[in-house]
């Protein structure tokens, strides 16, 4: 596999290792120590750390600043960027800003609608969409040009990722949509949280049949349940997440104090099965406000220690 950027994540994938990424949500304040503490919990067990970009449209410390903080700690950030809040000038500008700090991974997203967050009366921008953001970063990197056509001095060397949700509707365009992101230039994919493994395997099979899995690295997204309440919330309230009834039952049948343990167990079992799915090149472990569980999950899945690449 040809290496296009100095990204550590890209190198690990190119070397054929199963990659492990995770994510940290920045604080609702300006204390950088929150990022440092969260990162320290997981840094030895993951290859790269995503910083979310005002997730669920709740205003937080910006992803770029938090990524710089990680970089200064010697860690590998993945800059999440949503197209909700910035036009093409601001997006390109922030890409250059990130590149100035040698942030080598970007995840291109559209972002939740602002009505979910703390500024529901605000405007949204959506000057470009997530697929066009993929194109934008690749254009800036590969052509050394701005969207406006002018040359960029020291182009941003970023490994370009995006999200994919195998479970959202309509299912029939889930693989064509992946194909579209690949055509736009995406190099790695972090999937939505996988609970319905049968459906995920079907999606991967369909992607494989179209020859897509050689063109992109799929990182399977997993999130451990902390409680049966969380499992039900994910099933019923989070758009585009499917949780099989038997998984809910398994959590419900577990005594309350044992539920976190059971949730982690389910997560590890899922990852063991996902490791065997053709085309899965790694994992994106989203332990939402539960970062301390990431090391155990990674270790028990046999993914520790993490490989080193130069």
């Amino acid at each position, binding site marked *: 596999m040809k290496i296009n950027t100095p990204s550590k994540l890209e190198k690990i994938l190119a070397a054929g290792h199963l990659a492990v990424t995770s994510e940290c949500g920045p604080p609702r304040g300006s204390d950088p120590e929150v990022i440092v503490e969260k990162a320290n919990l997981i840094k030895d067990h993951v290859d790269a750390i995503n910083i979310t970009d005002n997730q669920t449209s709740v205003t937080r410390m910006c992803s770029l600043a938090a990524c710089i903080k990680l970089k200064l700690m010697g860690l590998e950030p993945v800059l999440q960027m949503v197209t909700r809040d910035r036009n093409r000038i601001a997006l390109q500008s922030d890409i250059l800003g990130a590149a100035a700090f040698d942030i080598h991974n970007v995840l291109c997203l559209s972002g939740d609608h602002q009505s979910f967050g703390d500024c529901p009366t605000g405007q949204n921008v*959506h000057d470009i969409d997530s697929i*066009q953001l993929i194109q934008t970063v690749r254009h800036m990197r590969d052509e050394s040009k701005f969207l406006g056509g002018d040359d960029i001095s020291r182009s941003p060397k970023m490994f370009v990722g995006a999200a994919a949700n195998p479970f959202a*509707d309509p299912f029939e365009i889930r693989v064509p949509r992946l194909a579209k992101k690949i055509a736009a230039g995406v190099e790695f994919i972090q999937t939505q949280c996988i609970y319905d493994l049968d459906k995920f395997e079907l999606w991967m099979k369909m992607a494989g049949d179209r020859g897509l899995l050689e063109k992109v690295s799929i990182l399977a997204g997993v999130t451990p349940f902390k409680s049966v309440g969380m499992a039900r919330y994910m099933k019923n309230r989070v758009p585009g997440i499917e949780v099989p009834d038997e998984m809910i039952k398994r959590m419900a049948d577990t005594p309350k104090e044992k539920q976190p343990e059971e949730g982690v167990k389910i997560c590890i079992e899922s990852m063991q099965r996902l490791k065997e799915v053709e085309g899965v090149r790694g994992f994106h472990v989203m332990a939402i406000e539960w970062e301390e569980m990431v090391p155990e999950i990674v270790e028990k899945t046999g993914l520790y220690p993490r490989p080193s690449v130069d």
Partner: protein
Amino acid sequence: MIVADRKPIEEIIAEIKEHEKILILGCNECVTVCEAGGKKEVGVLASALRMYFLNQGRDVKLDEITLERQCDHEYLEEIRDVIDQYDAVVSLACGVGVQFMAEKYHTMPVYPGVNTCFLGVTEKRGLWTERCQACGQCILARTGGICPVSRCAKRILNGPCGGSTQGSCEINKEISCAWQLIIDRLKALDRLDDYEQIDPIKDWSTDRAGGPRKVEREDVQQ
């Protein structure tokens, strides 16, 4: 058509309560169809205001006129002979009519009586929904006749986003996902393969972003 909705009467009263001679000016076009600013609504608003001023013990002149349109010189000219009888106008036209009125009668205070909402259709009596945001560069040929600019909450040109659930938008189950509609329509047209064509970054300069717009046609100018 341009769809508008009635302003709360308290808001209108707050604007006009100091005036003595008020003209309520309706429009016989879009706002009549969407039952916000036609002759009937002019009558309803005038009656409510008369009752308000009566209760206040004030003798306020309130007249009702409904023009064919408020967005054309020739119809707005029809009130030139009577406008001096008033010290304020409440226009129930869309924002276009209110502004044209203000431009033409430069010293006359004019207040909006409706909120102008969107370009849309009458789905059924009492239900109007949006179809167009007048972006100035129509892409409907590529999207099966369904507009993601006006009907997707994120105006995503290459959708759907991950929030599309059972045909509904993530922001509200009662709103259809525009991209589900586009995909259904492409399927009905046997054009689903077109879904994989990436829609390019849009030129928004013909949209609101490009500043106030105009259409000038020399071929039809006198």
